[in-house]
């Protein structure tokens, strides 16, 4: 009996291998036919759909798919239909590397979008450089090691649509010092996120440069729900402002619990705050004196912004967050580049991506800088009773 089972398992194993290989081969043939006719263009979508940061990956993909659906409904890119190939990297960098390789070598994609977080994105950079296929992320904000390598050379095939952490951290530090005349700041950061780490570092150096002091620096990890202990601790300190680098899931709860404990100081954050969930978690009463930097403001009268918000809300039934908007721009941006390249050759697409001038998106118009970071302005949004009430635009460096 046992032997039979062992044999069965081996058989399953072999069959799996064979069908796996066979499937791959069949796909390649399809690709060849597709290329000849050039009726479709394959774009890889390598995002975190399960695991720790699944909500960011899921949000980004919603935005991307919305853009692709619109483009395909309007006849595609010069008649070519976009075929998104969506894979899930489980929020694991090794899996991201493996999937990027799969997309580039097995599926013959023109470009890969994502992953959403810097670390997972960085894990796919060597794959893109090796296979000479461009990758773009809309939300990998790390300062170092993304578009420029350690030696200071630009990674030719690597692009992003968002600011790096320096720009946002510096902007918010200046905002605290100049607009809020803050002298003493408290930092509560998401210690499990590279994004928050980068923001905190830049905020501290700039804020101290303006003559301010960081009174306390506290940390939490993603998925924490109880922040009362650290909030009680900082309640005993003298400070003018709280800087809260992190994402809305925790930020919403931090703000709510802080206000419940009677901490009324202004709270500053970055684009990780931009989500309708922030309001749901914190409640309208708590969201006063909250400021965060973002790519766009819903107050913006620009029809492009308003149309997007309306269309997104209609399609998915909720208002868009920053990841949705950036994903939407990412979808349009890659389509625009393929159109300008006039070909599905990854190298031509890479050149078109690098040569982007004045791309008009929901999250702002930008030109691609020489270091493959977009040159675009930033908006500092102020919340009153949970609603965006003020917005200050800060130009690119």
């Amino acid at each position, binding site marked *: 009996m*046992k*032997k039979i*089972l*062992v044999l069965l*398992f*081996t058989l*399953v*194993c072999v069959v*799996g*291998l064979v*069908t*796996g290989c066979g*499937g791959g081969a069949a796909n390649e043939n399809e690709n060849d036919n597709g290329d000849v006719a050039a009726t479709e263009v394959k774009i890889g979508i390598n995002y975190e*759909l*399960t695991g*720790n940061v699944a909500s960011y990956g899921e949000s980004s993909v919603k935005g991307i798919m919305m853009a692709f659906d619109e483009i395909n409904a309007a006849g595609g890119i010069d008649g070519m239909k976009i075929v998104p190939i*969506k*894979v*899930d990297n*489980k929020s*694991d*960098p*090794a899996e991201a*590397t*493996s*999937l990027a*390789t*799969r997309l580039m*070598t*097995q599926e013959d994609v023109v470009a890969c979008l994502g992953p959403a977080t*810097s*670390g997972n994105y*960085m*894990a796919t*950079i*060597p794959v893109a450089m*090796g*296979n000479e296929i461009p990758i773009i992320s809309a939300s990998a904000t*790390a300062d170092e*090691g993304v578009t420029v*390598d*350690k030696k200071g050379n630009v990674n030719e095939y690597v692009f992003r649509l968002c600011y790096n952490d320096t720009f946002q951290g510096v902007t918010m530090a200046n905002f605290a010092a100049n607009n809020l005349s803050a002298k003493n700041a408290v930092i509560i950061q*998401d*210690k*499990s*996120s*590279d994004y*928050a*780490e*980068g923001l905190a570092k830049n905020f501290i150096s700039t804020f101290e440069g303006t003559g301010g002091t960081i009174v306390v620096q506290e940390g939490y990890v993603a998925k924490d729900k109880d922040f009362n202990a650290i909030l009680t601790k900082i309640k005993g300190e003298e400070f003018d402002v709280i800087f809260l680098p992190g994402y809305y899931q925790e930020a919403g709860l931090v703000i709510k619990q802080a206000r419940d404990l009677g901490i009324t100081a202004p709270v500053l954050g970055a684009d990780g705050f931009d989500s309708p969930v922030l309001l749901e978690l914190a409640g309208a009463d708590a969201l006063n004196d909250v400021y965060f930097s973002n790519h766009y403001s819903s107050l913006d009268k620009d029809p492009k912004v308003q149309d997007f918000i309306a269309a997104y809300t209609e399609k998915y039934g909720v208002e868009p967050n920053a990841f949705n908007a950036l994903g939407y721009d990412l979808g349009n941006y890659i389509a625009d580049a393929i159109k300008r390249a006039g070909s599905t050759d990854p190298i031509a697409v890479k050149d078109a991506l690098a040569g982007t001038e004045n791309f008009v998106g929901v999250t702002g118009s930008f030109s691609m800088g020489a270091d493959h970071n977009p040159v675009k302005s930033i908006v500092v949004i102020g919340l009153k009773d949970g609603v965006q009430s003020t917005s200050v635009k800060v130009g690119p460096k």
Partner: protein
Amino acid sequence: MKALTKKNLLILGAILLTFTVVQGLISVGIINKFYEITIAMICINIILAVSLNLVTGFTGQFSLGHAGFMSIGAYFGAVINLQMESTGGFLLGIFAGALAATLVGILIGIPTLRLKGDYLAIATLGMAEIIRVVFLNLDITNGAAGLSGIPRYTNWLWLCFFTVATVLLINNFIKSSYGRACISIREDEIAAESMGINTTKYKVMAFAIGAFFAGIAGALHSSYFYFIRPDIFGFLKSIDILIIVVLGGMGSITGSILAAILLAVLTTYLQAFTAVRMIIYALLLVVIMIFRPQGIMGTKEISDLFKSKKKDERIG
């Protein structure tokens, strides 16, 4: 005991043949970059599973902290490799990582291995979490942002070398008197002790050896996948390794190898089912355990299957 018995020569030949064939297929391009990653995943998982099997399957000490040792190896390997970008640095990183993991294994093993069963499991889990928190807060490890741009020196040659070395060394350890002492602890600790076996010594020894090879696997991982950060080595990773061991059969080295291959093929195959892959994986896990709780091989090795066949024939 002659080292060059017919059996050993046969094994050596088989290893060399596998190595050459795969190397040939890689250079011709039949095994492309994507399948290469799957192979690397398999090799690293084999090292992890076989070394955990020594602790959990053979010595009977239920450890949920293997990813902690792996992370020590990974960080040592990565930090040294980033300073010395050469094959020398790569090998130095591997051995430094493995030795550091061993040291930590001994330090942790001496107090915790007095615990039994689930208590030991939770203590090792806690220890792995402590290691992870320390890496999360150190400067040299770059905290949550992790270490990126680690040069890739891990290739098929090194993967094959370390995998084979791990399997052979652990196999020989188990067949030695030390190994038999470990197995006797699994079967009955009190009986073993009353036979004069220093159970603490052998438990710590198995734990340290397991940690050593987990460190090697970690260093290979960091060098192959360019990027590491603390949360990769969370308790879910320890559980992934444990799943391979249990699926293969506790106390079967060939079982661990088979299960590592099977799971890698399965996950590669499931990559195509983006939306439901984790659901299918979880279902398969439950179904396999219900229908074959002792794992693929139980406590048998592949070679045992042939032996028992011969015996059957003789009886028949």
